[in-house]
């Protein structure tokens, strides 16, 4: 055997070892079971094979915009009053479609410059444009709006991840999905109960501390009657947590009139922990961030004697009178059990969803179905593979052995790739493996047929092999490149299972370029080197 050839053999064995390690890692136990277990550790199964839940949800980013513009509106009103600028009306004309827009009507022309400087000083994220009859449209700047929306999405992802981590799901996928549609993809292997997941994700725990302008009332009607049928400006009616035994009102219900703008929100929270209130009842103690503390202090010092409402998920949890300015700690009590204070502090700590979410897609695969799919997929793969291996042996005799070695090596490299890259094997992915076998064998057939042809044309075995490989190589490159192009497009556009298919196909084709051309050639050369000159080739 010449030196060049043995050097190539070393390369092949080296690569083989690297990829065998990729498939198996270092098994804990050198038995069939131990090997299977280590394959299971290295090759990750997709949701369709393991069972699990797949959700696509959309963040209602307009919620976040509305929160921001509600607060901007409240601030603007305050500033207009302190600067004694008159106006006829201030409102958000279309909170559904244009949550970023505030319209101020009837600003006197001589106060225009004051008005504009208030906007630029106090609401730097907003622009004011003048309209008909001294009205002004104050809207959030495009870049700020986009940033706010994107922040809502990344915050939602972060929050959902925090919550799901508390569940202890292994290998969850939580990522942005689609382009610019504010969608989030959540994949939870092994969780076949979307109701449970949704329950946890949707426990929004949106904490807001707002001013209470009236209440409690026994019903919505009572609240309206008490205010002559009109709510105070910029306030909403909000239900209290069902208070049953508290009996502050006759009906057992409690309704409050609450300001729209909030003094602080869950975002200003530094931490929250279970505690007890002054009566020894379970309660949640929270500490605000420095910035939140500053906001809270300025609010409470301006409203000493007024009522303060702790609002959790749009339900009034607690109303208390502000006795003095408060810096950065507070207590939420609301007839909690010990367990509830623990849960609530956990959800408060993990952060509030900045906006509501809407579900767009839900798929669950039961674990039994996943197991069935693996069985039938692997079965099909083995049958298909065996049929091909046997056929090659019959049709090409010793050269068939060569092809079979290349094919098996191809599979090992493909699986090794998947182990190294942490790629996910899905059911269509198994189909991709089978297709790789088909395509892999095509390269061998191309080469062998060409070699046979060259032999028929009277070439000697070494030159027929040489010619066969060099002619087939061009075709193999062309066919592989075009298939990899379409697989890559599948990978970019596909999701989940389809992506798994594209992954195995691309890895398989890359492996095939190596095995069908390089490995197979080395085996041929090795066979030829052991033959006498003029001895026939078994093909």
């Amino acid at each position: 055997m010449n030196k060049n050839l043995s050097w190539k053999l070393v390369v092949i064995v080296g690569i083989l070892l690297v990829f065998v390690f990729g498939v198996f890692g270092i098994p804990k136990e050198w038995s069939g079971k131990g090997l299977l277990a280590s394959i299971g550790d290295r090759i990750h199964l997709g949701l369709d094979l393991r069972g699990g839940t797949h959700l696509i949800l959309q963040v209602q980013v307009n919620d976040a915009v509305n929160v921001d513009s509600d607060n901007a509106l409240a601030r603007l009103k305050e500033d207009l009053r302190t600067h004694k600028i008159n106006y006829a009306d201030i409102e958000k004309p279309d909170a559904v479609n244009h949550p970023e827009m505030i319209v101020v009507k009837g600003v006197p022309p001589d106060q225009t410059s004051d008005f504009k400087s208030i906007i630029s000083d106090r609401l730097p994220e907003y622009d004011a444009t003048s309209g008909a009859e001294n009205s002004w449209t104050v809207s959030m700047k495009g870049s700020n709006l986009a940033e706010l929306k994107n922040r809502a999405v990344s915050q939602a992802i972060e929050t959902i991840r925090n919550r799901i981590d508390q569940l202890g799901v292994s290998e969850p996928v939580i990522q942005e999905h689609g382009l610019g549609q504010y969608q989030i993809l959540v994949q939870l292997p092994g969780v076949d109960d979307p109701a449970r997941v949704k329950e946890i994700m949707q426990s929004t725990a949106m904490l807001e501390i707002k001013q209470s302008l009236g209440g409690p009332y026994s019903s919505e009607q009572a609240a309206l009657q008490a205010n002559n049928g009109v709510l105070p400006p910029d306030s909403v009616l909000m239900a209290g947590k069902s208070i049953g035994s508290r009996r502050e009102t006759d009906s057992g219900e409690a309704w409050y009139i609450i300001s729209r703008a909030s003094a602080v929100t869950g975002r200003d929270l530094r931490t929250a922990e279970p505690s007890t209130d002054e009566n020894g009842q379970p309660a949640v103690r929270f500490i605000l961030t420095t910035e939140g503390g500053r906001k809270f202090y300025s609010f409470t010092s301006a409203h000493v004697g007024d009522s303060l409402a702790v609002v959790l998920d749009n339900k009034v949890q607690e109303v208390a009178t502000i006795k003095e300015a408060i810096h950065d700690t507070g207590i939420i009590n609301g007839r909690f059990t010990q367990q509830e204070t623990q849960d609530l502090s956990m959800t408060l700590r993990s952060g509030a969803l900045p906006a509501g979410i809407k579900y767009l897609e839900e798929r669950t695969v039961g674990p039994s179905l996943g197991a069935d799919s693996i069985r039938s997929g692997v079965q099909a793969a083995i049958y298909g593979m065996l049929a091909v291996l046997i056929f090659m042996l019959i049709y090409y005799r010793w050269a068939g052995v060569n092809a079979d070695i290349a094919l098996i090596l191809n599979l090992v490299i493909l699986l090794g790739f998947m182990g190294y890259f942490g790629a996910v094997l899905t059911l269509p992915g198994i189909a991709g493996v089978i297709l790789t076998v088909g395509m892999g064998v095509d390269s061998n057939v191309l080469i062998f047929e060409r070699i046979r042809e060259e032999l028929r044309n009277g070439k000697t075995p070494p030159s027929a092999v040489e010619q066969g490989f060099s002619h087939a190589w061009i075709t193999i490159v062309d066919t592989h490149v075009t298939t990899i192009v379409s697989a890559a497009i599948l990978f970019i556009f596909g999701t989940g299972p389809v992506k798994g298919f594209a992954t195995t196909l691309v890895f398989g084709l890359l492996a095939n370029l190596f095995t069908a051309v390089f490995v197979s050639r080395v085996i041929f050369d090795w066979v030829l080197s052991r033959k006498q000159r003029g001895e026939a080739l078994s093909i």
Partner: protein
Amino acid sequence: MEFFRDTSIDFLGKKWYFLTFSLIFSVAGVLSMAFWHGIPLGVDFRGGTLVYVKYAHTPDVAAIHAELDRAGLKNPRVQRYGPVANDEVLIALDIQETSEQALDKGKIQIIQALESQAVPGKQDLNNSSSITIQKDLLEKDPLFLGAGADANPRYTAIGQAIVDYRDKTKSGVLGSIDELKGVADPAVVASLRDNFYVSDFGIRNVEIVGPQVGGQLRRQAILATLYSLGGMLIYLGLRFEWIYGVAAVLTVFHDTLITVGAFSLLNWEISLTVIAAILTLIGYSNNDTIVVFDRIRENVKLLRRDRLADIVNKSINQTLSRTILTAGLTFLTVLALFLFGGEVLHGFSFALVIGILIGTYSSIAIAAPILVAYQEWRGERGKRAIAMPLRPGNGPAQAKEKIKV
């Protein structure tokens, strides 16, 4: 062993037969798409709700349909699914019943409608999540763990074990609560019996796609197919002559049309995985076409005096052995997938079975004749025939260098 040796079939002479054959299938498919079944889109693209239900006994499709009608669900589709012995049904609801405001409303309604043996005040153990079971146990506390710290994890583990047993060992349906005796403490089983009953079915799989995602996936599928074709056109245009790219893309279009047409004729739904199969067949068919084109390019250099039609015929014959062998072997693997791959891969492998047959046929019967037809048309217009697609110094020459490592 050798199947084909020195064949010399006049493929180009049979082009009118090929054309007739292709036209019959394409036109039948197009007519079906336009006037009969349309393009039967699966839930991925159309949106809608699919619920796969496993029964403890042979399901009565008509009775299930009646139950769903009684519950007021509009146009539910009920059919047997998978091997008969599995006792599974697939229930499908239109997109009208699937709104994004309450995405899983249809699913919940289906489950409610099927609960014909519901026991008032009790929950269905076959369709309860582990958390429902855990909550119930925590409340009833059959093991007298009190409010201790370990009650929660203990009951969570028991709930999970029960659900695992139901889903993994019993394929999703328990025959009776007593079957749990091997899994849980007798006190737990007794407590469960007080609060739960078992229905005769369990939900195995759910797919709910809202209208927004459906539209998005539809757009993505069309884009992926177009980009795939575009990528091919560009690559072949660079490697060969532009007419080769055009011929290959027309061929692939023909294959796609016939495959989609077959789905329409059979009224089988096109799902996301079927699109993956169609893209694969685009790659495969193109593969075949390139092998023939490569040979034509090679022969054009060798046989400068011959007519292109003869060169093409010769090239097809030279590669025929490889074409048939590869097609046969790939077909074998895909057939294994179709026969043993299970219900989930049925549409996918069906598309590949059709695709490989058509893809192999078309590289001989469509792609090559297009090249010759173009050349003859150019010839009639008195221009020099473009039978010389190879540009010196282009890819192949460098590639040849590479092989001599």
